[in-house]
């Protein structure tokens, strides 16, 4: 392996179910101690990847390595991984204590030590005194904690989590996100986390693989994904984004002159290969990077005139949709709530000016 830090790696892994390609020539590496998320819409293959890591599916081609060891011949019960299942899979015929102690039998640990570690695990997931309960006497959040304790007590090298927060209500989910993050930092185990919730992935992860159609579109830190998406698809999936078509007029000294559909002619720094003279590209800009004003700015920033169409109230902020001549769709502009309700109400159909900082523009290849 080329990367010395690589702890878990997928080498050109594909998985076919009959004629369906669930995972398509996927390769990436995960470092030790990372909180790594697989993010994507349902059916993108993220759960299949997790199940291949856990040993419940075997790759059709390619190989999975954990701590340098190829895994294709290793059955689930001999892998250094443990999994928190989507529905938690708490054994209903056993109480909480027996559930948590379940896996320790195979580690040849003394009885007293087992009891001590179970108590410790219950403490860790904040369920002390719940040992005698049955799974049907637990709430969703408590089941989730039992599943976590049951997996972590095995001290795996890698913990696999299959949308473990999906079934919880929003408030509990946010609480568990914080706890999960803190737990991961304290135990130092590599977490691989599957989710379709981009906000959750951004909150929790040290790195994220954005997946679609069995492929990884981009593997990067949350910040990089948000600020430097590599494709329209990733940019569209992570947060909200405005897209404007553009033509590259000229490229000189790392500066590109673009003719955009709606934002006029723009000069911006460009280093990517696909920004070539004559190429059709996409210019992306986040709603919060657009500034709204009633008059044309005098600070020399690029700006364009538009008409307010609608607005959506999001509590802490508003999204105002401004239609600009030449743009296919109205551009979303994020404004703080105060501004919208402030001294000068912005009426529909009123004319406004949009401006942006030069570095707010993201250039993406046209696909």
């Amino acid at each position: 392996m080329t990367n010395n830090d690589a702890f878990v790696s997928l080498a050109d892994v594909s998985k076919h179910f009959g004629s369906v390609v669930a995972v398509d020539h996927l390769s990436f590496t995960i470092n030790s101690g990372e909180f790594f998320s697989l993010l994507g819409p349902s059916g993108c293959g993220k759960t299949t990847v997790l199940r291949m890591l856990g040993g419940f599916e075997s790759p059709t081609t390619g190989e999975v390595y954990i701590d340098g060891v190829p895994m294709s011949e290793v059955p689930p019960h001999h892998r250094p991984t443990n999994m928190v299942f989507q529905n938690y899979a708490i054994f209903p015929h056993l109480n909480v204590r027996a559930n948590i102690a379940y896996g320790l039998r195979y580690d040849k640990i003394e009885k007293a030590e087992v009891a001590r570690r179970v108590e410790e695990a219950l403490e860790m997931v904040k369920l002390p005194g719940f040992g005698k309960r049955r799974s049907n006497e637990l709430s969703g959040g408590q089941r989730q904690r039992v599943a976590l304790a049951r997996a972590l007590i095995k001290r795996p090298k890698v913990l696999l989590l299959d949308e473990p927060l999906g079934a919880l209500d929003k408030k509990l989910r946010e609480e568990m996100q914080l706890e999960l993050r803190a737990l991961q930092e304290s135990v130092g185990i590599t977490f691989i986390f599957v989710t379709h919730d981009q906000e959750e992935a951004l909150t929790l992860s040290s790195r994220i693989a954005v997946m679609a159609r069995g492929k990884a579109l981009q593997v990067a830190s949350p910040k990089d994904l948000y600020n430097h998406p590599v494709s329209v698809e990733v940019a569209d999936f992570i947060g909200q984004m405005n897209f404007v078509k553009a033509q590259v007029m000229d490229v000189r000294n790392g500066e590109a002159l673009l003719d955009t559909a709606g934002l006029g002619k723009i000069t911006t720094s460009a280093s990517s290969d696909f920004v070539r003279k004559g190429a059709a590209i996409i210019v992306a800009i986040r709603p919060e990077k657009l500034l709204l004003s009633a008059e044309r700015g005098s600070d020399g920033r690029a700006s364009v005139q538009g008409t307010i169409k609608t607005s959506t109230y999001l509590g802490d902020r508003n999204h105002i949709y401004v239609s600009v001549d030449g743009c296919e769709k109205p551009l979303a502009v994020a404004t703080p709530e105060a501004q919208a309700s402030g001294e000068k109400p912005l009426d529909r159909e009123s004319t406004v000016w949009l401006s942006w900082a030069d570095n707010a523009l993201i250039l993406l290849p046209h696909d």
Partner: protein
Amino acid sequence: MTDVAYIDRPNRPLYVYAIFYLAFLYIPVMFLPLFSFNDNIYITFPLKGFTIQWYVAMFKDQPMWAALNNSLRVGCVSSAIATLLGLFVAKAVTRYRIPGVKPIIFVIMLPMVVPLIIMGVALLILVTRLGFNLSLYTITMAHVLISVPFAMATLISRFEGFDPSMEEASSDLGAGPWSTFWRVTLPMVAPGVLASFLLCFTISFDDFIMAFFLGGTDPTLPIFIWGQLRFPFRLPGVLALGSLILIISFVVVFISLWLRRWGVEDTQSGI
């Protein structure tokens, strides 16, 4: 206008129908216990008086006890085998991707609808051609054959009612296939296993046709009872025995039906 909702209003024709229906079902059966306590060797009205002498006679009847013993042995062994086979089939069809699984199940279920008399004749021909002696063993094999479909149906529904991720979780935690089977699969399907065993047992215990065609010199209980009917003075004893079996059968069927439901919601409650 009444305060009673339409759905709660009494419906007299329906009550009458229900009473007739139940009477039709149970009155013939009730003659058994009724005459088993009647102090008369002949089965006629009017009733003469209360007695338990037929029960006493029955308990002293050695051949009857031998026949009961045969039936119990055949019943236990055949239902254990049928349940075990059903367990494997249920596990296979619900947990693995098997090509052509639907036709396979159809073929296994088919004996359910083949008339027993046809099956009996066919088995008799087969067994004698193969040169086996007719005995309790041949009856046991026949009972396995006719009860496997019932065992399968019971166990497949039980397996379908529990999430395969339970078994995956077990192997994820370090349990090998056998350990997973003993510690997770079996406890989770245990009510189904018991229900299947009881159902198969009643099928075997009830069976006359297979035992008639495939039996040797040792009679099972139904064959024994049938033999007794030729002697009028034996009839009240048979009634006493029949009454006892009736009660035991009802209890067993109730338990098995209850077991089929029991625990399923436990494993399906999910989140």
